[in-house]
């Protein structure tokens, strides 16, 4: 057993209202500069939709992630040899058109325009060339709220039945906020010829060393989630840094902190690094179960001992015990990985969204057990769609998660309305009273420190004399002080 700690984010899609506040707070802090205008380390997509960059889920185009071959994992795009021969022109790299030409508006025209018969307008200009843009043809959420659904949403590769988005009676949508997943088996790291990308041992955050990156661009397409971006100004790759300067001091990531719907949970998971590859060799529909097996119980004394041997501190172990993400992912099994079949073992998990039942024709409001629990097949968001998104096509896993969420809702609703509370509702979905209470607190009234349990990095405890005495507060470079 090789136990390591990982900071993980869980998104409750049921609560996301698609306000993009997370994207804005991220942009204001990290990517509000030249070369990074088009980068949305955090973005929010409407599903069904093509996403950002367009069609990122279609690996026939960008060739991201891993595939199984002869009982081993290998990068889908190319091996190491071909990497050397494709360095000059990277064939799978997403181009500017797959994102959009970043733009701003010339507001000065509003007060500088000479007198005339027309009202002056703020004209759009390109943030790359600075030239005036006749027409804006794309943006980071161009298909927001199913706009242009017959052009964009129909292209969603998770949709089995494409007529769904054209039929008002059956149409559905939910939002999908995305950050870098800080995967356990990151394809971007594996694809980098310069070895500029790395995974931090202590908290699992995946970073690009800007000093080492030479701009070979393989990471931009190797990441199946397209969360590594190419800075056209600096000629190097950049990505979400999980707000490590904030999490190191115990603060929540900017996106999670600013979330209006409080849909995000941040916490620690302990996992067995030696079993990651073996788990990823399982068939698609067993991958979620394999994920859960790799994640270890922080209360298990053997796990704790092994974690300590790897340098996981007591503070981190305590945080792992209280971890909201452990509860949601493993204990209750309601949070699921995004596209586990890309085989990077993503460490951002999603609680699938509930949706209203389809009300069409004769079977208006057809409900099942107890009169209030809808049949899962009658939910607007088809299980097959959610399964393609969150469980590698396994319907059973989605059903289990949805059943728990529905049971919890029905149970709590009855309680607050003073109706008879049926514990059997919970039992049938695999929950108990204590579990229901814990989930209820996490989803609703749990405060900042309950939804997010982030231990600090305790840098100051490690070598405070040397840090302060030998290098002052300019701590970026290693000192040559006594060991």
């Amino acid at each position, binding site marked *: 057993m090789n136990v390591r700690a990982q900071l993980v984010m869980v998104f409750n899609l049921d609560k996301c209202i698609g306000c993009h506040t997370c994207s804005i707070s991220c942009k204001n802090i990290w990517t509000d500069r030249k070369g990074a205008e088009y980068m949305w380390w955090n973005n929010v997509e409407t599903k069904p939709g093509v996403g950002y960059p367009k069609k990122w889920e279609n690996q026939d185009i960008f060739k991201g992630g891993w595939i199984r071959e002869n009982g081993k994992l290998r990068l889908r795009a190319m091996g190491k040899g071909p990497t*050397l021969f494709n360095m*000059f022109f990277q064939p799978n*790299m997403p181009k500017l058109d797959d994102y959009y030409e970043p733009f701003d508006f010339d507001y000065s025209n509003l007060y500088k325009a000479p007198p005339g018969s027309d009202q002056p307008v703020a004209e759009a200009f390109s943030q790359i060339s600075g030239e005036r843009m006749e027409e804006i043809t794309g943006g980071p959420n161009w298909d927001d709220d199913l706009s242009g659904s017959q052009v964009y949403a129909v292209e969603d590769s998770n949709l089995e039945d494409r007529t769904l988005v054209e039929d008002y009676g059956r149409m559905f949508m939910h939002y999908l906020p995305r950050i870098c997943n800080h995967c356990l088996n990151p394809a971007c790291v*594996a694809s980098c010829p310069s070895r500029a990308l790395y995974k*931090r041992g*202590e908290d699992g955050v995946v970073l690009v060393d*800007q000093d080492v990156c*030479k701009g070979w661009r393989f990471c931009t397409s190797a990441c199946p989630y397209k969360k590594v971006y190419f800075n056209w100004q600096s000629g*190097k790759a950049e990505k979400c840094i999980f707000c490590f300067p904030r999490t190191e001091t115990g603060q929540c990531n900017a996106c999670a902190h600013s979330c209006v719907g409080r849909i995000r949970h941040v916490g620690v998971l302990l996992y067995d690094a030696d079993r990651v590859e073996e788990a990823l060799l399982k068939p698609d529909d067993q991958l979620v179960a394999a994920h859960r097996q790799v994640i270890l119980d922080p209360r298990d004394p053997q796990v704790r001992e092994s974690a300590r041997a790897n340098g996981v501190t007591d503070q981190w172990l305590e945080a792992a015990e209280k971890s909201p993400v452990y509860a949601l992912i493993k204990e209750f099994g309601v949070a699921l990985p995004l596209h586990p079949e890309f085989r990077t073992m993503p460490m951002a998990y999603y609680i699938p969204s509930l949706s209203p039942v389809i009300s069409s024709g004769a079977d208006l409001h057809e409900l099942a057990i107890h009169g209030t629990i809808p049949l899962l097949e009658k939910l607007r968001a088809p299980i097959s769609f959610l399964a393609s998104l969150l469980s590698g096509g396994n319907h059973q896993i989605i059903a289990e998660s949805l059943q728990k969420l529905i049971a919890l809702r029905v149970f709590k609703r009855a309680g607050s309305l003073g109706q008879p509370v049926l514990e059997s509702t919970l039992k049938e979905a695999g929950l108990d009273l204590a579990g229901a209470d814990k989930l209820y607190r996490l989803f609703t009234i749990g405060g900042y420190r309950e939804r997010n349990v982030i231990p600090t990095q305790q840098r100051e405890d490690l070598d405070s004399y040397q840090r302060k005495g030998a290098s002052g507060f300019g701590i970026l470079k290693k000192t040559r002080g006594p060991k």
Partner: protein
Amino acid sequence: MLNNFIFIVLPYAALALIIFVTPYRYFSNRLTWSAYSTQFLERKTLFWGINPWHYGIIPVLAAHFLGVIFPGPMKAFLGNERNLVIFESVGLALGLFAVFGCLALTLRRVNTPLLKQVTFASDWVLLYLLLAQSLTGVYVATFMRWGSQWYLHTAVPYLWSLLTFNPQIEYVTDFPMVFKLHAAGAFVIVALLPFTKLVHMLYVPFDFLKDPPILYRWRSK
């Protein structure tokens, strides 16, 4: 005078710059150490420029270095007439391939408005210099036949004399102007290397071939 400048002053100036400026840039400003790709902004013409250029110029450059490092074996190999003809033909073809690529890259910079933001004076200097260099190279290969053979008996001993700090320029002073331009161009390119994006040449990624796929960094280890 001109001979002294081209064959003594230029090479030593270039040598001094590459030896002192390269580590300085490496240690003081590694953030600018990049291949500085523009594929993101324009990729259609790039494909027809960047691939011919690199696949043409790398073997030709390697052949130049082979001659300097192993003059003996190269002389023996090219003593065979058939080998010499094949070697020269392949070299000329690769040279033309590189010229085509460099031309495409230059025209691409001229014709793509979006690239103006990422094109600096150094890019124009390099593009024209490399274009001129590959053109003079192709000229020498075409009109001064069997260059791969006489190179080993003239330029190679001269380059060795440079490295031993005993420059014997009489090996090369009687060549026509175009050859001198080719030599001067080479030294200027070497001199510019540490100041421009050409530094990407100094980094050939071979480490990753043997590394495990996932790289970890531990603060504590």
